[in-house]
């Protein structure tokens, strides 16, 4: 019962863990490189969700000078995640560019097939 209660109260942490595992699983088990990158993105999103939910308090406003709200959420995790998002975007773009190159060299984006082609070359 205690565990169920804990999960119910912290459902966002639990959700981010589940999403993280989904992403991790996708990244490790799929041989399609694009799907690997998708898994990577899902995993990152889970981490971002986790960080943002640390600072979130229900019903409070963003801390802006001159606003009317009296109670604020912690803005720092959101600011951190903005940076994380930027990094995630650039990593994804870079990975996609590399996949395009791989496709040009091997004619496939499947990791297993690439392994096969490489072993035949040797």
């Amino acid at each position, binding site marked *: 019962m205690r565990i169920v209660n804990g999960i119910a109260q912290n459902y966002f942490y639990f959700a981010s863990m589940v999403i*993280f595992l989904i992403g*991790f699983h996708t*990244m490790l088990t799929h041989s399609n*490189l694009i799907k*690997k*990158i998708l898994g*990577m993105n899902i*995993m*990152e999103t889970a*981490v971002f969700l*986790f*960080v943002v939910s*640390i600072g979130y308090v229900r019903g409070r406003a963003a801390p802006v000078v001159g606003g009317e709200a009296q109670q604020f959420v912690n803005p*720092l*995790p959101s600011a*951190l995640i903005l*940076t*994380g998002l930027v*990094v995630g975007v*650039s*990593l994804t773009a*870079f*990975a996609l560019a*590399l*996949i395009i*190159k*791989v496709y040009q*060299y*091997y004619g496939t984006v499947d990791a297993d097939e*690439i392994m096969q082609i490489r072993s035949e070359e040797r």
Partner: protein
Amino acid sequence: MTHVPVFVIISCLGLAFALPVLCRFRPRPAGWLVRALLMLNTALVARVLLFVNHQGTFYYHLGSWPPPWGIELSIDYLGLFTALVVHGVSLAVVFYAQTDLAGEVDPRMHHWYYTLFLLLLASMTGICFSGDFFNIFVFVEIATIGACGIIALKRHPDCVEASLKYLILSTLGSGLILLSLAILYMVTGHLNLRYIAQHMPTAWAAYPLNVNISLALLVVGFGVKAALFPLHIWLPDAHSSAPAPSSAILSGVLVKIYAVALIRLIHTVYGHKLHQMIPVTQVLLLLATLAIFAGSLFAIGQRDIKRMLAYSTVAQMGYIFLGVALLTENAVVGGVTHIFNHALMKSMLFMAAGAVVYQKGFRRISDFHGLGREMPITMAVFGIGALSMVGIPGFNGFISKVYLAIGALDAGRPVYVAVILISSLLNAAYYLPIVTRAFFNQETGPATFRVDRLPLSMKATLVILGGLCIYFGLVPGSLLRLVQKAVQSLLAT
């Protein structure tokens, strides 16, 4: 003078952004600009070291926001030591790259190569100096992009594939680091390393599970990036397929920067009381021992010179983690000194291997018959590096191994002395045959010459690095004093 560390980082970033515009039509001056900036920055870092030696360590608050709000750069001995190693090796690499790049990277892409190189350099310096966990994470990510970029810039299927593999595993590592950071922030409420350390005892008392998880994630996250043994699978591909200057900087410096970051975080943030309660150092010791043996055994089986050097890096990272995890002062001195020694040796060996590829065009070790007669300087330098790797007295590799052994005895674990001795024999088993084959074998290898003579810039870089290897093997006093100061401040906190 206090602005200098931030200037070193910012000037690298600034030139990195300016190069694509400046050198759009004439890529040639890019290399000279980078070399000039690096010489200036190396001198500046050395000057800051003198300043700190005189005035003591200091903190720099970006944007004048004092901690815990703002980002803090902490300029201490460990950071300065690693920054000096980073800049010294990079300086050698850019002088070497002047001619080597022409053979491996499309000339129109040279200024992009330097842009990525500068980004990598700026982020490595940033990791050395930063006193803020999130800032370290950001620099780690920039370093990842820079590192993957300078591998993939060579137009070869192997490079692109290795780079992609490295990128995916690295991203996994940084995801874990970010998660660890988030959990730490959750229980301590701070991102500044000193403030996290202050709040660690109360956090540990209230939420031991969170602290444990964050430490585990941190070790695995940085372990992937620092190629700690079972997580090293990306390293041989990435480091062996990359252009020679990239291999030198990645294998020589980059993996160690992550090790330094991990050491700093484990020692300053988690502190010694936690080490007695969480067996993290035991795990590190086990993995380091495995790394030393497995890396060497894999290296013995390699036929490609650069792949062999890459596996050797896995083994050598084991020494660094071994020293740091033994926790006695001498052992940590040995580990940290090995960061410098290995950076010097491994970048030199990769450059020597690159010079062979540049002049002769082959990479198979079996082709090295009689190469010592055709390329005496390169192979002599390679020989110095090989002897130093094995740990022959008089070369710099010996110094760090002696300190590691003494530290293992101090810690009351003589079994690790045996580990170091046996692994030295294993090192000899794969390094020395190359040297004997090159110098004492009467046969001659394939007589293919891509170019008649090695350019002066390559030869000079190799000779200077070889000279430094011998110099620090014979007179290690100044180096050891600096490392001891760094280690004492690390262990005191």
